[in-house]
Structures are given as C-alpha cells and as structure tokens.
C-alpha cells in the first residue's frame, strides 16, 4: 500500500464511490488510484498530483452523468444484456442527480412549474411568517412563559395603592404595574405626539430585559421620588425620532411638563408586553406624574393601571388568585373573580375578530397553493403521457415499475425543491408587503417577520408536501398504462381516452372549482367595497376637513375656547374659504366615547347597541358584567361647539342648535340624534325632556334639539344612539389637564371646517392658516372626511384586491394547464383524428370537438365550484355589504369568465387538430 502521505484526496474518492456503481466504480477509481500512485505523484509532486486527481474526478463524473443511461449500465459485468441492465442497489443520490438533469433538459416547462409552485409557496410563507411573528414567537423577554396578566373579571384598571397591596402576593416572583399615555415630546414648533408607558421601577428587571444598544435601563432605585427623572427610549423611536443619535444617553428631553434624562435605549425587538402597541418611551411611575401634572395619578381614585406578574417556578394561578383576593376590596365576590392568565400573544394586539382577517387570508392562500399543485400535476401528467414510450422501455428493461415511479417522484421532488427555494425568496418580499397592509392596526416595527427556524421549517415541509402531492399522483397513474400495448406502436389513443387515462378528467375540474372560489370571493368583496363607497358618497358630507389640535394648556379657561373659535371663524371666513367651523371632542367614523344616560320618566331603557371598534366580525357577545351594568343604556357622547352640525351639513329636525349662551354658567343642555329620540321617546316630542349622566342626582340636562342621523362610528353600522353636549359645559372629569384655577379644559380637540363651494382647500394650506391665526396649538393631522371614510375601508379593499389578484393568477394557470393538456392530447390522438378526416369529417368539426371538450371539462368544474364557493363565502358573509353570498350577478360573471378562458385555451389546439394531414397522421407513429 502506498504510504498514507501519498493517498489521493479522500473527499474526491468518496464522491466517486457515491456517484458511480459497481463496475464503473471499479474501473475508474482503480485507474485513477493506479495512475496517481505510479505516475502522477512521482512526476509532479504530491500537491499537484492531488489537484490532478480532483480534476479527473470532476471531469469524469461530468462525462458519466452526460452519458445516456444505457451506456452506464453496459459498464456492468460482462453478462447477458438483461442482467446488465438491472439496476443494482438503488442510489438515491444518483437518481436525484439524474432527475435534476432531466428537468434542466426542458427549461421552459420546468421554469413554468417552478414559477407556479414558487408563487403558491411564497404566498403561504408570507402569511405564515406573519402568523409566526404574531402568535408563535415568544415574547422577547427572559421569562416569557411565566408572565401572567392579572385583572378583575368585571373589568377596569387598578389604582396604585391596590398595586402596592398586591405586590407581595404568594406565587409571584414580581408584580409590575403600568399604563400608557399619549403626550407631546419637545416644545414649540417641533412638538410631536409620542406614547409613553409609565411603569413601576421593577419593570425591566422583572421581565429580564437588559440594556440595548446604548446606556442602561432603569431599576427599582431610580423610581424613588427625589431621584432624577429618567426615561428609556424604544429602539424604533431612537432610530426614527432621534435618527439613531449616538449621544442619546444623558440627553434631556421634555415630555409635556416634565423633564427627563435619557438613561438608555431598549433592546431591539423589545416592545413591552403589548406587542403592536409598543410605546416610544418608558418612564418610572413615581416620576410620571410630572408629565401632565396630574395631581392624583398615584392616588386611590385613579384606577388606570394594568398588572402583569411573573409566576414563581412551580406556582399555579390558583395560588395567586387565593392570595390576591383578600387584598382587593369591592372587586368581586370570590377568588374566581380574580383573573390570572398567561399572556397570550394574540390577546396583545388582535381582538378575535381581527384574527378572522388572517384566517381569510390563509384560506385564500391555501386555495391558491392547491390550485398551483393541481396545475403542476396536470402539466406533469400530460408530460408523462407524452413520454410513455421511453418510460415503457425503461420499465421493461428491468427498472421495474417501482423504480420508475421512484424516478418520476424524484423528478417532481426536484421541481418542488426548486419551487420551495423560489417561494422562500418570494416570501421574504411578500411578507413585507403583508406587514404594510396590516400597518393600520399595529406598529409595523413590532412585527418581526424575519425568517427564523420555524419559518424555514414551514417552507421545507410545504415544499415536501407539495412535491409529494404533485409527484405521487402522476407517478402512480402512469404505472397503470399497459406496457405491451405502448411498445407495440402506441395505443391507438382516442382523443377522449387520452384525456381519461391521465386522470385529467378530475385534475382540471378541481382546479376550476377552486378557481371559482377565489374569483367569486374576490368578486363579492369588490362589490362590497363598491357599495360601501356609494355609502360614502351618499352619506358623507363633502368639503369637510378635520384637523387634530393639541392645545397644551394654552387655553386656560373654558371661556378661552369661545374666543379661540371666534378668532378662527372670523379669520377663516374673512378669507372666504370656510362656511362653518367647529371644535369637538370626537371625530365621525372614529370610535366615540360612551356614557350611560338616564332619561327622566323612562323606566325601561332600551338595550345598548354593541360598540363597534371599526373591525368587522360578528358582533361580540355582551361582556359578562354585573347585573347593574347590563341595565344601563350606553350611548355615544361627544362635546361640540355651536356650528358643529352646520359644519357637517346635518340639519336640525327639531329644536335649536347650541349657541354661545350655552356656556359654562348657563343651563345644561343637550342635543340628541334621531335614533336616540326614536328609541327613547318614540313619537313623543323630545324637546324639553330631561336626562342625567350620573347614577344618582337630579335630571339636570334638558334636551333642546334633535339632529339628523349620521353614521358616527362605522359605515356599516346604523347610526348609534348619540347625544351631544356643549363643549363649554364639559365636566371636570372629562378633561385631563388641570389649570391654575382648578378648572379643567380638554387638551386635544378636533377642528372641523366646512369649505365653501369652490374653495380649494388643501392640508398644507389649512395647517398654515391655523398656525398663522394662532401658532400655539400643535396641528397634528389634517385630512378630509372622504379620506377618513376611505381609510375605514382599507381592510375590505385589501382583501378584495388579494382575492382578485389570486383569482386572476388562478385563471392564468388554468389557461396554461388547459392549453398544455389539450395540445398534448391532440398530438397523441393524431391517428384517430386522421382516421376521422379520412372518413369524411370536416376539419371544422374536429376543431369544434376540441373546443367542446375543453368547455365540458370547465363546466364540470363550475358545477363543483359554485356550491363550494357559496359555502366558503357564507363563512365570511358578515364582511359583505350590500351583496348576498349567492348573488347571481357574481356567479354568472365568474361562469362566463371561466368558459371564455376555456375557449381561448382550446383555440390553438383546435386549430392544430383541424390542420391534421390525414395521410401523414395515418402513416406516422
């Protein structure tokens, strides 16, 4: 044996041994070893000899792979032909390489198949990566599986003294409390709205979160009063709002009234315990009171905190519940009213109804993937049928049906792998698009859709399943073809028999059926969007602009509002552009605040309408509340200035509008809308009736007017019961900003402007004009009613768009699949066609036969698909508006589209059939 230093490279030899079989291996490896040892090493030295060996290995492998299979087998033993051609031990690696080789020999078909699969797999991956980011990934904190949310069954927040009393409950390693506020950062013209979470000092330590890119986080000792106020900025805001300032640590920032020193930046990806609503800053509770100068933030009457606990190891929620219950007063009647639940990710940011959107998305994507698989199956089946002869020979010569089936399956798996890789790449891009679509609900920063092990495992398993799905059926189907008949000169394949034998009779109809589902869903959603848009046009006041203003305590007394309004009104009207101006505490089409109302003389108040949160799902079940709350009549309540209704173009059907006489010192008055009046008073005159908003006390508010309805909360819902009160009479509790005189004024209001006909207002000009009149308020957003209405439609639009796009893709796939199948069948059935022509059939009738077949196949699919799509659309019927799931117009349109597609697909094959030369067809085969 040669000394070990002179051995050929082991990896090269291993490659050769794996790729070659029996006799070829013997000959080639033996030759190379011999030459290596005896000639090359002495001639050229060891290093260059090894390089020579590698070159020989690679070129020899290439030559062997390029060789047709027959000659490889002939390299076997010098034995009778049949035995020589029997494959020895199955070699998956070699077969896979052969499969890849086969696919690369037909680039066009392979590319089509890979693109089809890639689209389906890519879409599935995108949806899954979003689902992964939302539901499956753990919260990026150290003890994510021990975090529990603690609340009371009847709802409501907690006060700071309650937190202190609960802190040392048994079963908890730590208890943290926190609440979120919106406030302004900075001063003067550079102010901007930010969200701040006020938390107890142990927040970061309890969650096991350390410092991020810069600085440090705060701890318990920072939270004691008297220590310098600190804040931690979130990674996202540090990068956007502070441009990733490297010197952020130690900088002093102003949050409304309070000054804080930035202690550090939170780690990337940390969003607190409310994923999707991550705050921009975290500030210790003890120092947070300085922000808004709230006198009683930590007092016993302010119940606004949420509680999160870290379960001790081995502790159960029962222990915690039993320990907490005695510490709480007036919160339920038994320990069962203490709710201790692990923080589920989906509760963080999606109500169950928003989860529905993802489910529908997933349904569309799954259907698309199924269509892609069926389509690819069709193409592969047609292709196999065309290769019948070659496969039959291979089978006879010893490969056996099983070996052949395995070979075919490997080819299909190779395609599926390539499709999976393409799908992974496409999925990266598609998932970003999806995040953008969802950004109306959640902070896109918090959606980490980067591919982690879970997503990659998903891609791999979907590719594998796809490969099996597309591969198994054609491979099995093939093995039923009679080998002998094929070898004897081809089956005298009738046109119909060809179609049947490859199982195309059921592949294509199912494709059509699933495509129908997509097209019908997309169509219904499109019609829904259209109907809703009509609602906007008919119901929406035009020329109405909104601007969100933040006063930041510039208006010291409620009387200053009147002055501010007057100034605005006169100056804007002088500029001939505004017809009416008003301020209010709410915006139409945004969810309003609710208040209980008690009507004098009405002992049986109507039931409260369920609140609409702007999402679409079945109405939520009424919350399990105590008996007393159920009897309350909750209505939308808002505070407005005189002129509000004029600005919206709503006439008063009875009574009068507010005036400046309805001021803070005057009688308390209210205006209700038609729905309220009808439900409370029926046909009786509501003017002069009295109401109150507290549980006890005099009915101090008199109704002075009834205004026409408007859909205040969502375009889909009927108008809610609404009551309007003068802004000047806003009670102390409503406000959030105490002034020196002890009264309170609201901090933020919406300015409504109705432009004059013909006036060309724009967001920038309005903003400029407002600031010119008074530079003090912060003008946050300026936009029109139309834009707001359009925004509320964004989800329906997104789904309609998605359904239509996927439906169109399915249509294209169907076209390709039908075309391929028809063409293959015509080619195979040439002989029959020739016979028919010879017997006197006209070419036109042959073409018509092809087209008829195509239409019939698609019609079969429609018969399957229309009932199926009805069932599916009933599933999301509550999303629809103005259309029924079985709307005939949509069904007929879809049917027509599909039949036309079938005709188009069959056109070229029909021409081909009509042009068959009977003489040649009968001779050839």
């Amino acid at each position, binding site marked *: *044996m040669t000394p070990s230093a002179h051995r050929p490279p082991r990896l090269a030899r291993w490659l050769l041994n794996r790729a070659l079989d029996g006799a070829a291996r013997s*000959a080639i490896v033996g030759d190379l070893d011999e030459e290596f040892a*005896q000639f090359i090493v002495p001639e050229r030295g060891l290093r260059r000899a090894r390089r*020579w060996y590698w070159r020989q290995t690679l070129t020899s492998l290439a*030559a062997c792979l390029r060789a047709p299979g*027959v000659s490889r087998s002939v390299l076997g033993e010098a034995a009778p032909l049949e035995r020589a051609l029997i494959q020895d031990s199955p070699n998956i690696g070699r077969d896979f390489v052969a499969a890849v080789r086969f696919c690369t020999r037909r680039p066009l078909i392979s590319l089509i198949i890979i693109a089809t699969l890639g689209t389906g797999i890519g879409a599935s991956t995108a949806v899954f990566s979003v689902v992964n980011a939302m539901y499956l990934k753990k919260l990026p904190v150290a003890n994510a599986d021990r975090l529990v949310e603690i609340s009371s069954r009847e709802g409501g927040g907690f006060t700071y003294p309650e937190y202190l009393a609960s802190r040392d409950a048994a079963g908890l390693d730590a208890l943290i409390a926190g609440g979120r506020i919106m406030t302004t950062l900075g001063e003067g013209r550079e102010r901007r709205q930010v969200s701040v979470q006020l938390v107890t000092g142990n927040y970061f330590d309890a969650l096991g979160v350390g410092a991020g890119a810069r600085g440090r986080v705060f701890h318990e000792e920072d939270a004691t009063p008297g220590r310098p106020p600190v804040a931690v900025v979130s990674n996202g805001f540090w990068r956007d709002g502070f441009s990733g300032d490297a010197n952020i640590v130690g900088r002093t920032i102003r949050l409304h009234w309070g000054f804080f020193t930035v202690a550090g930046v939170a780690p990337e990806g940390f969003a607190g315990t409310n994923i999707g609503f991550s705050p921009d800053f975290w500030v210790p509770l003890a120092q947070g009171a300085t922000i808004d100068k709230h006198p009683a933030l930590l007092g016993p009457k302010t119940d606004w905190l949420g509680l999160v606990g870290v379960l001790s190891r081995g502790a159960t929620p029962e222990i915690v519940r039993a320990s907490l219950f005695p510490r709480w007063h007036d919160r339920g009647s038994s320990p069962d009213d203490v709710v201790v639940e692990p923080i589920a990710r989906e509760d963080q940011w999606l109500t169950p109804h928003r989860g529905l959107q993802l489910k529908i998305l997933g349904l569309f994507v799954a259907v698309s993937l199924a269509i892609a698989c069926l389509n690819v199956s069709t193409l592969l089946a047609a292709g196999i049928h065309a290769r019948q002869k070659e496969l039959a020979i291979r089978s006879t010569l010893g490969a056996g049906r099983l070996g052949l089936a395995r070979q075919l399956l490997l080819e299909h798996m190779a395609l599926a792998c390539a499709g999976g890789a393409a799908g992974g790449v496409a999925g990266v891009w598609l998932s970003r698009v999806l995040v953008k679509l969802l950004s109306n609900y959640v902070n896109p920063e918090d959606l980490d859709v980067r591919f982690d092990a879970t997503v990659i495992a998903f891609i791999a398993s979907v590719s594998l399943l796809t490969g099996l799905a597309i591969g198994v059926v054609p491979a099995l189907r093939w093995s039923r073809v009679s080998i002998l008949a094929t070898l004897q000169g081809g089956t005298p394949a009738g046109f119909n028999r060809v179609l049947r034998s490859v199982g195309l009779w059921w592949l294509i109809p199912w494709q059509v059926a699933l495509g129908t589902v997509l097209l019908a869903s997309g169509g219904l959603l499109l019609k829904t969007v259209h109907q809703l848009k009509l609602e906007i046009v008919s119901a929406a006041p035009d020329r109405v602009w909104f601007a969100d203003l933040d006063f930041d305590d510039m208006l010291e007394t409620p009387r200053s509002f009147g002055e501010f309004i007057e100034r605005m009104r006169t100056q804007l009207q002088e500029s001939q552009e505004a017809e009416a101006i008003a301020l209010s505490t709410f915006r139409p089409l945004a969810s309003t605040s609710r208040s209980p109302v008690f009507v004098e003389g009405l002992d049986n108040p109507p039931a409260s309408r369920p609140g609409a949160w702007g999402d679409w799902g079945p109405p939520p079940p009424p919350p399990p509340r105590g008996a007393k709350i159920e009897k309350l009549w909750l209505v939308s309540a808002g505070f407005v200035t005189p002129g509000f209704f004029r600005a919206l173009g709503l006439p008063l059907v009875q009574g009068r509008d507010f005036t400046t006489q309805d001021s803070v010192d005057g009688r308390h008055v209210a205006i209700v809308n038609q729905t309220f009046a009808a439900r409370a008073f029926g046909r009786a005159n509501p003017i002069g009736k009295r109401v109150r908003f507290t549980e006890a006390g005099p009915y101090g508010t008199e109704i002075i007017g009834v205004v026409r309805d408007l859909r205040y909360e969502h375009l889909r819902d009927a108008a809610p019961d609404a009551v309007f009160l003068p802004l000047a009479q806003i009670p102390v509790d409503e406000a959030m900003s105490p002034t020196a005189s002890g009264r309170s004024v609201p901090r933020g209001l919406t300015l409504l402007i109705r432009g004059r006909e013909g006036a060309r207002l724009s967001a920038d000009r309005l903003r400029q004009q407002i600031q010119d009149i008074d530079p003090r308020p912060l003008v946050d957003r300026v936009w029109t009613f139309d834009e707001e209405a359009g925004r509320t439609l964004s989800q329906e639009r997104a789904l309609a768009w998605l359904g239509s796009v996927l439906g169109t893709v399915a249509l294209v796939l169907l076209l390709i699949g039908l075309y391929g199948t028809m063409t293959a069948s015509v080619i195979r059935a040439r002989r029959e066609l020739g016979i028919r022509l010879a017997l006197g059939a006209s070419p036109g009738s042959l073409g018509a036969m092809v087209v008829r077949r195509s239409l019939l196949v698609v019609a079969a699919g429609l018969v399957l698909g229309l009932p199926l799509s009805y069932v599916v659309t009933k599933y999301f019927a509550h999303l629809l508006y103005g259309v029924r799931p079985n709307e005939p117009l949509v069904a007929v349109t879809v049917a027509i589209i599909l039949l036309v597609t079938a005709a188009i697909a069959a056109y070229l094959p029909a021409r081909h059939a009509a042009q068959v030369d009977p003489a040649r067809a009968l001779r050839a085969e």
Partner: protein
Amino acid sequence: MGRDHLGRFEHHLLLAVMRLGDEAYGMTIRRHLADHTGREVAVGAIYTALARLEVRGFVQSRLGDPTPERGGKAKRYYRVLAAGKKAVAKAQATLLGLSRELDRDLEQT
C-alpha cells in the same frame, strides 16, 4: 451518417487500443492519449466512449485480475474487433483522401 462513422475522439481511442494491444485498459489508454495529443482526457470520458463503442460492436471488454496497486480493484481490458478495425480503416482512408497532396503545405507549417 453511416453506421460505422467515427468521431475524432473515438478514432483516437481505437487507435490507442490497437497500439496498446494486451495492455489496453483505462489508465494506459489515457496516458497514451495524453502523451500523443498533449491534452488531459478524463478517464470517465474514455470509459463512456468505449462503452458506446462496445454497444456498436467495435470493441470488446474483459475483466482482468485485481491488483494491490489499485486497492484491490480489477482492470477492464479492451480490444478492437474486426468491425472496429474496419471503421478505423475507413476513417484513415477518409483522412488520407482529404489530405492528399497537401503534404507539402502541411510540412511547411
């Protein structure tokens, strides 16, 4: 294309096998060709070409004895059959016919 058409590589292969006689197997053929053409040929390409030639009936192969230098692997020897010799002769004649009277030209380059 006639049934006994030879490509250039196959032509060289058959000549090499005829020249090497009893010692014609993969390695020797390869080295022989490398020496004469000045190009490295892959031994795998030699075997696949010889296998094709064997199917066409121009050569015949047999297994030799395993030797220690080859790590116990047997050698596969080839010899040219009559049909192969006829094909080579034809190829040579073609070459001669094409290059007749061009010798002087060729010599000068």
